[in-house]
């Protein structure tokens, strides 16, 4: 099985975020990590390759810093990487990011394309499905299990409220992967060493520019959300905080 995994570099979960001067995006100077659901997508691709042989290719778009997520993926076992490298990729909407990916892989034939189900920064949950439509491929979202069958794959979709559904899909296909589908592996020392010699191809914006159009949506303003609820802050030494909380539980909330 030849599998492509789309990875996105996003700000670390507890990294402090500062707004840029225009108030339209965050400032670059924060710490980054791979988008968590994408890490599960990569792990699933590696497991499928272990079962069925083949190749795992990883792709990302973003400035030079984004190369880090590709290096980590190569260290975990991916075979090669594609980096659509340009600062401009940061501001691209999902539609155009998917167009850029489709253009960059147009000469390759993947059996499966995996993405995380959504990103921790925008949270649009769209890029994978858009990519499927652009490439004319079937897709399924929020996947918790993948099994190869004679005619393609059988996947387990997570629905809401504890429901699931198996779906048979012909390949090639695009799947968006839910966190928790598997257990993530760590990169080994040998893996990290080997990663240095694995191919990492850079694709410039100029090479795929013709496929990318104007954004169809625009962030007018990014801001710290206004609080809608009155919150009482309890502070002090732990023992005092505990006493205050119990007083609240007993006399105000009446749950004790």
């Amino acid at each position: 099985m030849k599998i492509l995994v789309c990875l996105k570099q996003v700000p670390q979960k507890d990294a402090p975020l500062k707004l840029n001067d225009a108030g339209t995006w965050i400032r670059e100077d924060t710490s980054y990590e791979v988008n968590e659901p994408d890490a599960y997508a990569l792990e699933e691709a590696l497991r499928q390759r272990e079962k069925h042989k083949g190749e795992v290719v990883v792709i990302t778009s973003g400035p030079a810093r984004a190369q880090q997520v590709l290096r980590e993926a190569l260290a975990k076992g991916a075979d090669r990487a594609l980096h659509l490298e340009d600062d401009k990729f940061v501001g691209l909407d999902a539609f155009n990011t998917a167009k850029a990916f489709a253009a960059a892989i147009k000469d390759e034939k993947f059996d499966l394309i995996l993405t995380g189900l959504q990103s921790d920064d925008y949270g649009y949950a769209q890029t994978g499905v858009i990519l499927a439509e652009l490439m004319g491929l079937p897709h399924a979202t929020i996947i918790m299990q993948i099994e190869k069958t004679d005619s393609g794959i059988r996947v387990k979709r997570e629905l809401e409220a504890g429901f699931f559904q198996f779906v048979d899909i012909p390949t090639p296909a695009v799947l968006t992967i839910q966190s928790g589908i598997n257990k993530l592996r760590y990169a080994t020392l040998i893996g990290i060493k080997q990663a240095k010699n694995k191919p990492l191809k850079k694709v410039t914006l100029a090479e795929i520019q013709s496929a990318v159009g104007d954004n169809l949506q625009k962030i007018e303003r990014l801001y710290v959300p206004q609080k809608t609820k009155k919150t009482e802050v309890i502070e002090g030494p732990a023992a005092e905080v505990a006493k205050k909380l119990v007083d609240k539980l007993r006399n105000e909330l009446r749950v004790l």
Partner: protein
Amino acid sequence: MPDTILVIVEQREGKLNRVSWETITAGQAIAAATGWTLEAAVVGGPASIAAEVAGKKVAKVYAIESPKLEPYTPDAFAAGLKQFLAAKQPKLVLMPHTYQVRDFIPKLATAMGRTVISDCIGFKHESGKLAFTRQMFQGKLAADVSFTGDAPWFATFQNGAFRGDKAEDSAAAAPVETVNVEIADGVVRNKPQEVFKEAKQAVDLTQAEIIVSVGRGIKEQKNIDMAKQLADALGGELAASRPICDSGWLPMDRQVGSSGQTVAPKLYLALGISGAIQHIVGMKGSKAIIAVNKDSEAPIFEIADVAVVGNLFDIVPPLIEEVKKAKAAS
């Protein structure tokens, strides 16, 4: 002719998903602000759903039909709706941000060369310009996002963004028009099997009056026991955010959030939960929310009634003791 807002309600397995009323409320609010006409559509399902929606204040309800729309597949829904929307040309198409909608709306919009502003929590209409508010960076920031391309514009609303019970009824039922769409053989590639539930859920968190819930801040599996002791002392249930269940530290049936259970207890005590959107949608209806987190900027504090900024490992042990004392004294 004025511009039209079209709300596409969700039916699953022949039943109207109640979250659709929230989208109707949103549509009514945008219609009031813009002066645009509000219409609704149902894709597949029995005629009773269109009739139910026609009881709300909407100008018209379309029942979009084709034998290929059952069971749900993204291919059929995108093909059927594309045909319908290309003919109707609404200005704005609204849907709830459900797992089903997430599965087909990016495909539908892309097939029409359009875009979706997804998972919105509100809208703004200022000096004639419409923008949609959505959470970014897991709720740490918010953004007002506008469309820069041609209509139809697509937007989805987060569960709980509007009040479903505020959807206005209409004195007389709106007219229902059946629209048959043609979906050619071969369009539908996925073969979905029956929907099922995993082995019966052992824990029904929706009935719990008190929930103690843990997030990433609990750090290690062995620390879960401390939270369990607090839950026991309070006579409540133990729950968790998704990453804890993903790690296998607690079973999946203790998960609160969009992929787990939706709860509204008297007390929701969140320990080391940052408050990602997917978690918040599952517990924001709680009567009282107490959050303990060391990060004063954690989004959970946005919706907390009581905020304790501090280390949960310092605060929980004395809290267990105080709760036990209080219980013993009462």
